[in-house]
């Protein structure tokens, strides 16, 4: 079985600071692999047995190598950085175009493509279904578990109000977005670190993906940011000393009145 895991590198938002005007200061915030991406990779490694391949790939700037190195440490067999200046400014549509080209040109014949449910920076959750449609494959979102049973995969999805399991024949491509870590979660061993450090992270660009000019990046996008403004920062109101809990409680009750 060939499994492709698309991962995303995001700024570590726990470490993003806020300046005096309430704006985010992102420079200097370390980049980390998105938590749901890690769930997806984890699930892939848990599913893969002997002879199965786990291919990790990330579309992003050269800095996304860090996430890919982490994928190799966690058990991916191969890692690809999908990187080209022409990809800058891609929206979900353009991103799905690039990732589908990767799945067709670089890692054809995959049985399963896994992505994280959504990424903490963009939070659109649009790429997996867009990718599935482009590849003509069925999609499974909010996947919490995948089991192999006989000749099929059983994918367990959690819609919040419904838990369901769908059967999908092995050998036909499925695209899943993962919302929970597999049972595989573990720290990499020292030998895994050493093995990963010796492995190559290959880079693929627009030409390698046979993408025509303008297919990706801002030109290949279907949405455009017209304007941005800082949101309601400045709510910052009165601060009260709460060293006496009883006084603090009455301050809350007063403060609740409109």
């Amino acid at each position, binding site marked *: 079985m060939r499994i492709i895991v698309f991962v995303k590198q995001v700024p570590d938002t726990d470490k993003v600071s806020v300046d005096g005007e309430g704006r985010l200061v992102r420079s200097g915030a370390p980049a980390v692999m998105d938590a749901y991406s890690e769930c997806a990779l984890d699930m892939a490694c848990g599913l893969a047995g002997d002879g199965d391949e786990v291919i990790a790939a990330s579309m992003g700037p050269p800095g996304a190598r860090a996430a890919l190195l982490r994928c190799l440490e966690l058990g991916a067999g191969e890692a690809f950085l999908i990187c080209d200046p022409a990809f800058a400014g891609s929206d979900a549509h353009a991103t799905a175009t690039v990732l589908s080209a990767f799945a067709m040109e670089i890692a054809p014949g995959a049985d399963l493509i896994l992505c994280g449910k959504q990424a903490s920076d963009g939070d659109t959750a649009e790429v997996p*279904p867009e990718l599935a449609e482009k590849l003509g494959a069925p999609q499974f979102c909010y996947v919490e578990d995948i089991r192999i049973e006989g000749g099929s995969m059983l994918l367990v999805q959690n819609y919040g109000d419904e838990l369901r399991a769908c059967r999908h024949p092995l050998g036909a491509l499925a695209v899943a977005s993962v919302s929970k870590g597999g049972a595989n979660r573990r720290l990499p061993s020292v030998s895994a670190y050493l093995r990963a450090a010796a492995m190559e992270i290959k880079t693929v660009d627009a030409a390698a993906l046979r993408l025509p000019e303008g297919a990706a990046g801002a030109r290949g996008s279907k949405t455009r940011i017209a304007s941005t403004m800082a*949101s309601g920062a400045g709510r910052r109101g009165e*601060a009260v000393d709460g060293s006496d809990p*009883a006084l603090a409680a009455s301050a809350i009750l007063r403060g609740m009145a409109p």
Partner: protein
Amino acid sequence: MSDRCGAGGCGERLPPGMLEAFDLGSPAADGALVWLEVTGGPEPEISQSSLEVLGKAAELGAGRVFGMMFGGSALRPLYGEAFSRGADTVYHIRDGRLSAFHPEAYCEAARDLAERIRPSVILMGATPRGRELAPRLASALSAGLTADCTGLRMEGGSLVMTRPAFGGDLIADIVCEGRPQMATVRPGVFPAPPPAPGRKGTAICRGYGGSSLKDIAHSAPVPPDGGDISRAKVLVSLGRGAASREALEAAESVAARLGGMVSCSRALVDRGLLPQSRQVGQSGRSVRPDVYLAFGISGSVQHKAGMRLAKRVIAVNKDPDAPIRDDADLFIEGDALSVLRELDKALRSPL
């Protein structure tokens, strides 16, 4: 943007061999198509979020409002409800098999419908299923899509979609290149329109001729855990600084007395103290209560993204530099658990 195709039609620009123009970028595109998500098994109803979207679609003034629904003949009683809430035409893709959610089949049928009626705008609630179906349909139609919008308006034929970006510290206005223009709409942001009894419309039934059905082996409802925090008027919310059984008990008691619910940040979910459905934030729910009481919540960017729309925020934290202070109308520097207990005591004693 909308003049990709001149007033004379797209005919002369068609690539050789293409018989019919499916150019939804045409300015002829008109109207708003809304997915009417149906909930409930034997007695189906149109979901609250779909009613909200329907109301917003009617208010946009983008032309006629088309509803589309999927399922068997049990949906027939819902036509009247859809008309009464703003739909002019309801397209019912009638097939009993589609009463379960099949995103591939829904997408196929919705694409055929959109190619026929050429809506300018396609909207869905940003529910888990709406957020799964919308991108597939956007891809099938090569349409732009903005997820989880908190504002929508028309500007000269263009749909301007507002959504929080970067965890809510920025608000972005986004527009689509071409038509249709697609958005999912955050539940609970727009009011559901009041019913207009007697309002009439047209219902059109079509069959589903495709075969993109999933093999659903099991399906079971997840029992509701006592309500939906995204609709609560008062939330007593707990974070890392109040991640204990004692705090949870006090919070439940306070919430009960205030007619509200208990919500939390990720810390409590990670510790198994509350289910994920109670989590506020980017990976949890977005809430908009009248009062948000934050106990021991430091206010990570992800958390703040989910509570920005609260009318009033009161935060208790022992760290005076906690980021939540910037988002609190009233900030109390103190121990979350002690203050919570005192608040519980104060609400118990009749004064």
